[in-house]
């Protein structure tokens, strides 16, 4: 049929929508990274979402609720974070320059994530240490919850937070991925 939409026309609209600054969130799927498929979303303020094993329908609803309804797949605004992730996975990048956008989170989560951002590549810290640095040494469990709800894993390195005895403890993307990322960084053998 002649009136089905061509990929070129579709991509042209998606690019124009982003170029005119009309999107609340631009997102794209990175179908095969070393940690599987990722859904990545960006706003004008930075990277607002990285999801493992994405279920696009649910993700879009959530993004629309948090940032506004103009959520559209558009690859161009994702270029920078995609490149940085590629470099990270190939071992040539040890810190991200893209900004995380965590404005939608409660103040406490933002404070903990700001401390988390200072944990360097190839190092680990503990929930308790991060809790102390965020103002309350006894809030290790709360810090665990903040890590679990980190909207931009990898860029904000919650995989570098482990239990006091060195056990990996937990990871929203699954322990296998946590181990894989720490191995990539040379933090474990």
């Amino acid at each position, binding site marked *: 049929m*002649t*009136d*089905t*939409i061509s990929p070129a*026309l*579709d991509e*042209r*609209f998606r690019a*124009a*929508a982003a170029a*005119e600054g*009309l*999107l609340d969130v631009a997102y794209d799927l990175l179908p095969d990274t070393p940690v599987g498929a990722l859904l990545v979303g960006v706003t004008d303020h930075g990277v607002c979402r990285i999801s493992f094993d994405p279920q696009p*329908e649910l993700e*879009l*609803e959530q*993004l*629309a609720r948090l940032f*506004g*309804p*103009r*959520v*559209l*797949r558009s690859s161009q605004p994702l270029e920078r974070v995609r490149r940085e992730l590629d470099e990270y996975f190939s071992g040539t990048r040890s810190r991200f320059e893209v900004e995380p956008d965590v404005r939608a989170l409660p103040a406490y989560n933002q404070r903990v994530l700001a401390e988390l951002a200072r944990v360097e590549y190839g190092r680990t810290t503990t929930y308790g240490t991060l809790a102390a640095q965020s103002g309350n040494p006894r809030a290790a469990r709360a810090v665990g919850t903040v890590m679990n709800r980190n909207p931009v894993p990898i860029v904000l390195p919650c995989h570098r937070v482990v239990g006091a005895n060195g056990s990996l403890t937990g990871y929203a993307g699954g322990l296998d991925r946590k181990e894989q990322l720490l191995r990539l960084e040379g933090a474990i053998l």
Partner: protein
Amino acid sequence: MTTAVPPFETFYEANRTEVLRFLGRRLGRQQAEDAFQDTFLRALRAYPRLEHGEHLRAWVLTIASRVVLDDVRKRRPQGELPELGVEDARPAFEELAPLTEGLSASQRAAVVLRYGYDLGYDEIGEALGSTEAAARQAASTGVRRLRKEQP
């Protein structure tokens, strides 16, 4: 209960084929592609002002028909065409909605698309996800009911 405004991606995927088909019939394939982009960019600009997610098909087709009119006007500047609202801020569908409040959703949409936008019954049928005959029926029942209610 009203439906929430869906993420734009969902709305776009659900309506893009139909919008392109509508524009193709009105403008021909070549012009339709430019008009397609224009239609969805206008929809994107107006999207944050939507209050609910109902009748989005009819809504985007009203935008498309406005794009068609603008396009025709551009090429025939003497302009013997009817004047429609030019801003996307308040779609005519919503302007006319209060007048047609007593009607069912499909009657209301049929009346507005027929008399507000001069769409054909085949196009209205498509916009409402029904048939040409059903659209004709809905519009005529709608008009009859309005005449009774607003003597």
